[in-house]
């Protein structure tokens, strides 16, 4: 039995580990296109200011270090389910009995035809390679613009601020962290960032990148202003890496459609991680996510299913994040923005600390903890597992709201 895994990140690693648990002697090929795969991707911003080195973000257990696993540096460009082979960029073909698609996501390049997009000093930040390139470019920079006020954008802004750059974050939405925070929390965090001399512009878009001798040296805002920038980082998000599936016949709907055992519409082909589409437990709607723990869990379920085990996709959320920004910890999960009367919203604030719970009847469907994140997991699990609380609902509210410390 030949197992082939496409991808070099955590989904691939946990899929591989699951196969290995069921079939210790399995023949596993891992096709990864990055020069150095298997590292903790969320730590990439920490490479920019040197607070982590490349070695320090590698997986502590390299998945292909075991027996009968082979790491192939190549890129999967097509799949032929009939012949059960995948085609590689190098021109080679690779046969499989079971295939796991774990190719993750690729960064979105905003406005593909934006002026200046191809000039020196314009980067995305998705891979270790990206980070190394930016770090090499840094000595020539004094100013930076981050396009996108999401989590990656903010973490990148903080790292660049630490190396002494004058940083501006530009976000189109009325608030930063639109997917992780509500307006209140976003405003608190923005205020903290500004205190650290990070310039935060919301409801602003970049119209073009200004260049001089082929090098970026500023951005022109849609509203007319100009922000100096020796370095421009595009951090507007990620989309599923599914272009190579076009001719495979695998059913795609924004992301790869899978059943609850992570199998695609095509026999013997499984998919997991950032490229799949699933049903969000909080909203009940189709969703995609780049969440680390979703990647770990779905990778594991896929690997298990492929190798004869029984395992089911756990309940998943598209929003469930934890981080610390400008010294403030924040954990949010589920539904964060509500207009509808269907939901009951409870908030409590104590200085910068803030807690918000959103209920749909007796079920918790959303939460934000800022400043004091203690016991957050108890509540993210109530959301994820759609636990009906009945008369315990008031107890939960009281617990959360009276124990801010």
């Amino acid at each position: 039995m030949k197992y082939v895994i496409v991808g070099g990140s955590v989904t691939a690693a946990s899929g591989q580990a699951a196969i290995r648990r069921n079939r210790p002697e399995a023949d596993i090929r891992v096709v990864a296109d990055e020069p150095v795969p298997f590292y903790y991707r969320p730590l990439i911003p920490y490479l920019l200011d040197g607070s982590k080195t490349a070695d320090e973000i590698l997986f502590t257990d390299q998945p292909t270090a075991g027996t009968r696993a082979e790491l192939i540096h190549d890129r999967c460009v097509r799949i032929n389910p009939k012949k059960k082979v995948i085609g590689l960029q190098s021109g080679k073909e690779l046969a499989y009995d079971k295939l796991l698609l774990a190719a993750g996501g690729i960064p979105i390049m905003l406005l593909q035809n934006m002026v200046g997009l191809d000039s020196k000093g314009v980067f995305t930040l998705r891979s270790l390679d990206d980070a190394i390139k930016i770090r090499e470019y840094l000595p020539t920079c004094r100013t930076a613009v981050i396009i996108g006020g999401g989590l990656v954008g903010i973490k990148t802004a903080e790292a660049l601020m630490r190396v002494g750059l004058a940083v501006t974050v530009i976000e189109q939405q009325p608030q930063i962290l639109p997917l992780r925070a509500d307006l209140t929390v976003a405003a608190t965090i923005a205020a903290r960032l500004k205190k650290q001399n990070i310039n935060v512009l919301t409801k602003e878009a970049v119209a073009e990148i200004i260049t001089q001798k082929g090098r970026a040296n500023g951005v022109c805002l849609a509203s007319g202003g100009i922000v100096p920038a020796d370095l421009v980082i595009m951090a507007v998000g990620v989309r599923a890496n599914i272009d190579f599936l076009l001719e495979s016949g695998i059913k795609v709907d924004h992301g790869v459609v899978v059943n609850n055992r992570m199998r695609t519409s095509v026999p013997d082909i499984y998919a997991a991680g950032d490229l799949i589409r699933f049903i969000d437990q909080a909203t009940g709607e189709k969703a995609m996510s780049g969440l680390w723990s979703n990647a770990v869990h779905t990778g594991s379920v896929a690997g298990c299913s492929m190798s004869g085990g029984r395992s089911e996709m756990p309940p998943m959320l598209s929003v469930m994040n934890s981080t610390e920004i400008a010294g403030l910890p924040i954990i949010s999960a589920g539904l964060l923005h509500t207009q509808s009367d269907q939901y009951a919203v409870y908030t409590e604030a104590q200085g910068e600390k803030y807690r918000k719970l959103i209920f749909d009847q007796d079920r918790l469907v959303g939460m934000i903890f800022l400043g004091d994140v203690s016991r957050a997991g108890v509540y993210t699990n109530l959301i994820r597992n759609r636990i009906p609380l009945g008369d315990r609902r008031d107890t939960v509210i009281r617990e959360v709201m009276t124990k801010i410390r």
Partner: protein
Amino acid sequence: MQFLYAQTDRCLGCRSCEIACRIEHSEEKNLFSAVSQIHPPKKRLFVEQQGDRKEPVLCHHCDDSPCMAACITGSLYRDERGVIRRRDERCIGCWSCIMACPFGVVARDANLHLAVKCDRCPDREIPACVASCPTKALRLVDADMLSEERRQEYMLREEK
């Protein structure tokens, strides 16, 4: 495989385990210096009360370990005893483990900027919380031993 077992009907809520935990994780491992540490040591288990029942809520070192699955740095790992531990140098204080733990037993040490959880006292044979429990509500048990014990309890109940 050993694990920490809390027999809740024996817990009096004295919080000795919490104190013992902090002492074990303090600089000098002694109460009097622990209370005078500038940054007091953190506890890794939590005595809570639900109705009449008092209970130490503690890390189960779960098989499916949501904390480890959520760790984005490689800090959390399972040691040879099956205990989920932290590599200090890897932890960046992102609190993903706090977000993931359904028992709420991972805590944030804001001073050290480290996630704090039960490490089952690697320097001790018997964890400090177990050793401190005056009513033996907290025990370090063998999985097999416990099920045997449960069976016997059940049989005795039947005989009555």
